[in-house]
């Protein structure tokens, strides 16, 4: 007996995507735009002009209460109680073994209110874990997945575009900050965050207002070349920027230290937190002998490495595995992120190749990221 697969969920902007002729894809149970036209053109638009994304599949969870900050300190690896109102922080939620359950952005909306944004595929796991871990902290954990649509405008032209539609003080809004305001006449939480390596904004708003804001951004951005962008270019943008993706660089078998992101773990924060013991051990191990390191690889040829492909040394021995790979529109060559044995992780290491379906293709080991915007 097999059940029919559940019907994919559609965002409040579904009709817009279809009117634009988007190629849709199933992503974590959501039907999302993969691309509208050429994903390479969409990628380039974000790097040089601006791109408009529907990210409404992301999972929002609110924590509200006088000790909500302490609840998050206990539940997550970061010290969220120290976050200033109006600021955001990249952090992670781990299991007791130190394995990553998800990577998150947490916004402090008020003294007693935080907004946690989880990956769509992990939102239920995160919601369940937060609910369990916040008990005893006088904190309400609210599933706000249905309460928000999320629209991102990313790229160097995005501040100018958004300024035409809001009275909010965007010049005063720093990277990784968020403030309530209005966009195109409707209320929104305006955050200067993103997953592209460019300047940009993420707008959390009521689903009923999503089409209005999408249309206003489309119109305001048209003169400077804003285009709608799908998840395909979001993936190549984040890969060039060296940003990890859950399920690829980050898994429940990976600690933040394995991923080279030990800095998000605040071992010096007061009190116990879930995973502390395991993460203290992982930290000590990372200081002495780290078994593997996340590196960047740049192809000398044109064949594209894919997640799961083996990284091999000159003698043919397997030294690691590709976690993400794609043709890089900015570099004009295939690139990958891979975990490799630490002795092969130094930039410029000779003789490293990727086994691409039986053929060894030479790759250059580089430090991440592949791309960093000029500020």
């Amino acid at each position, binding site marked *: 007996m097999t059940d029919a697969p559940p019907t994919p969920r559609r965002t409040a902007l579904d009709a817009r995507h279809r009117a634009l002729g988007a190629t849709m894809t199933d992503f974590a149970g959501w039907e999302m735009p993969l691309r509208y036209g050429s*994903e390479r053109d969409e990628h380039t638009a974000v790097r040089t002009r601006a791109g408009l994304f529907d990210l409404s599949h992301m999972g929002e969870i609110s924590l509200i209460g006088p000790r909500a900050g302490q609840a998050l300190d206990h539940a997550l690896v970061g010290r969220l109680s120290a976050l200033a109102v109006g600021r955001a922080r990249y952090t992670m939620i781990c299991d007791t073994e130190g394995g990553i359950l998800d990577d998150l952005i947490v916004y402090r909306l008020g003294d007693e209110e935080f907004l946690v944004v989880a990956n769509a595929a992990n939102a239920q796991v995160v919601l369940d874990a937060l609910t369990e871990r916040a008990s005893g902290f006088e904190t309400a954990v609210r599933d706000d997945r249905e309460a928000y649509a999320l629209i991102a405008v990313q790229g160097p032209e995005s501040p100018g575009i958004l300024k035409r539609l809001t009275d909010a003080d965007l010049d005063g809004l720093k990277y990784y900050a968020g403030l309530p305001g209005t966009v195109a006449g409707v209320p929104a939480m305006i955050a200067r965050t993103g997953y592209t390596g460019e300047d940009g904004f993420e707008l959390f708003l009521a689903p009923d207002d999503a089409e209005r804001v999408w249309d206003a951004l489309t119109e305001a951005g048209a003169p400077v070349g804003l285009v709608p962008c799908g998840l395909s270019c979001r993936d190549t943008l984040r890969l060039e920027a060296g940003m990890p993706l859950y399920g690829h660089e980050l898994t429940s078998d990976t600690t933040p230290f394995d991923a080279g992101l030990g800095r998000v773990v605040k071992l010096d924060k007061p009190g116990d937190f879930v995973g502390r013991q395991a993460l203290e051990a992982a930290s000590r191990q990372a200081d002495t002998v780290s078994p593997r390191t996340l590196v960047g690889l740049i192809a000398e040829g044109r064949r594209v490495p894919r997640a799961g492909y083996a990284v091999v040394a000159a003698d043919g021995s397997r030294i690691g595995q590709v976690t993400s790979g794609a043709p890089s529109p900015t570099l004009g060559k295939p690139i990958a992120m891979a975990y490799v044995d630490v002795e092969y992780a130094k930039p410029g290491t000779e003789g490293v190749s990727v086994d691409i379906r039986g053929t060894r293709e030479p790759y250059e080991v580089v430090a991440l990221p592949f791309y960093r915007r000029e500020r």
Partner: protein
Amino acid sequence: MSNPQQLRYSKEHEWLSAADADGVSTIGITEFAANALGDVVYVQLPDVGSAVTAGETCGELESTKSVSDLYAPVSGEVTEINEDVVNDPALVNSAPFEGGWLFKVRVANEPEELLSADEYTAFAEN
């Protein structure tokens, strides 16, 4: 999209031109397939002089998100490959039925199940 009437099509989304005086047909992938792949970034084609067999893989096409096998729609000897498309794989997307052709085959054997343009259109849209 419209699939040219003078071509025939495989269910693996290749097209095949009518043979010229030397019995050579040109092969490419359809616009439907090119759109499904997204931006093609790498094309691996069979060697000139090699034999390809109908229904078997003879190369691959890589796009941003995936890699797909290229199937030979007919059996025969490869007489020419499109060097332009090797150097600029985006031709597969921009002109799948013209400048984005892939290779030419001196046809030895042609399967009966190749489709007409109308049959292929119905197949692809289904």
